C-alpha cells in the first residue's frame, strides 16, 4: 500500500521513519548465542527500500536502536529513510541515536547539517609561505602576544590573535585576490575585443 502511495506522490519530498522490525545487513543485529539473521527479512527490507527509491541516512551515536530486556539480542530496527527530493531541500541529513531511557528502543532524531558547521578551521594560503618576510612577521607577532593561563589555553588564544593579524596582513599584502582576478580578466576581455575589431 505504501508503495502504491509512493508511486502516486513520487515527486514529493518523502521521509519514512519508524520501527521496521527488520535490518538491512547481518551486522545490524547481534545475538549473544550466535543464531544467524533471517536472510529473507534482510532481502525483503532492502527490496522495499529500493522499490520505493528511498535512501538510508548516515547514523551518529550508537550502532543499535533496540536492546532486548534480558540482554541477549540487540538490533537496528528503527531508522529514517528519505527520497531524493528530500535531499534536495534538506541536504546531508543524519540520524542521531539517543541514549535508551523510557523504552527498550532508543529515540532517533533526524536533522540536516545545513545550519551548524561546528568550529571553523584555521586556514592558511600556500602563497603566504613564498612571500619574503612572512616567517619573520609570524615570529615577531607570536612573541609579542602576552597571554595568561595554562599552556593549552595560551596556545588557543595566541592562535586567535594570530588569525586577526594574518587577516590584516593578507589584506595589505595581497588585497582581495578574487576581485584582482576579476579585474584582470575583464581587462583582458576588453583588450581582446579591441584586437578582434
Amino acid at each position, binding site marked *: 500500500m505504501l508503495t502504491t502511495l509512493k508511486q502516486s506522490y513520487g515527486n514529493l519530498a518523502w*521521509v519514512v521513519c*519508524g*520501527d*521496521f522490525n527488520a535490518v538491512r545487513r547481518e551486522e545490524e543485529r547481534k545475538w549473544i548465542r550466535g543464531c544467524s539473521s533471517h536472510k529473507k527479512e534482510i532481502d525483503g527490507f532492502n527490496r522495499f527500500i529500493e522499490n520505493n527509491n528511498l535512501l538510508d541516512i548516515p547514523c551518529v551515536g550508537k550502532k543499535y536502536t533496540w536492546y532486548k530486556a534480558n540482554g541477549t539480542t540487540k538490533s537496528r530496527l528503527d531508522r529514517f529513510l528519505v527520497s531524493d527530493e528530500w535531499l534536495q531541500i534538506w541536504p546531508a541529513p543524519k540520524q542521531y541515536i539517543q541514549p535508551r531511557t523510557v523504552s527498550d528502543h*532508543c529515540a532517533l532524531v533526524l536533522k540536516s547539517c545545513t545550519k551548524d558547521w561546528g568550529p571553523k578551521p584555521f586556514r592558511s594560503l600556500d602563497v603566504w609561505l613564498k612571500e619574503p618576510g612572512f616567517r619573520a612577521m609570524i615570529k615577531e607577532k607570536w612573541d609579542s602576544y602576552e597571554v595568561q593561563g595554562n599552556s593549552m589555553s595560551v596556545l588557543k588564544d595566541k592562535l586567535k590573535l594570530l588569525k586577526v593579524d594574518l587577516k590584516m596582513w593578507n589584506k595589505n599584502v595581497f588585497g582581495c585576490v578574487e576581485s584582482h582576478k576579476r579585474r584582470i580578466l575583464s581587462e583582458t576581455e576588453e583588450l581582446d575585443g579591441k584586437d578582434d575589431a
Partner: protein
Amino acid sequence: MIIVNLNIRGLGGEVKARYLNHIVSKEGAEFLCLQETKISSFTEARCYALWGANNIGWVFNEGINGTGSIVTMWHKEAFSYENRVAGTGFIAVLGYHLKEKFQCMVVNVYASCNFKDKVE
C-alpha cells in the same frame, strides 16, 4: 526538518511524557513520530501533554486489536497539514513545510514482526 522518532512501548506514566517534552524542546522538533503507544484513543489533552505545547496537530492510527497503535504529531508553526492516508502499520501525512516552502510527505511506520506483512 527535524523529526524525533521513538517506539515508546506504551504511553503510561508521567516519566514518558516528561522524556518526550524534554527531547522535543531540546532538539527543536517539528515532528514527533511514536510507535506502540498502546492506547485505543488519542485526545487533544494527551497530545499537548506529550509535546508540552498546545499548537500541535496529530494523526492517530489505533492499529489492530490494541497492538501497533501509532501517532504522528507536528508543530503547526512548522508544518501546514493538508491530507493523510492511514493503513495497516503506517500513517502518511501530506502537507507544506512552512520554512522551506515545500510540500512533503512524512510517513510513520510500525511493521509487525512478520515480514510478509511489511512487504505488502
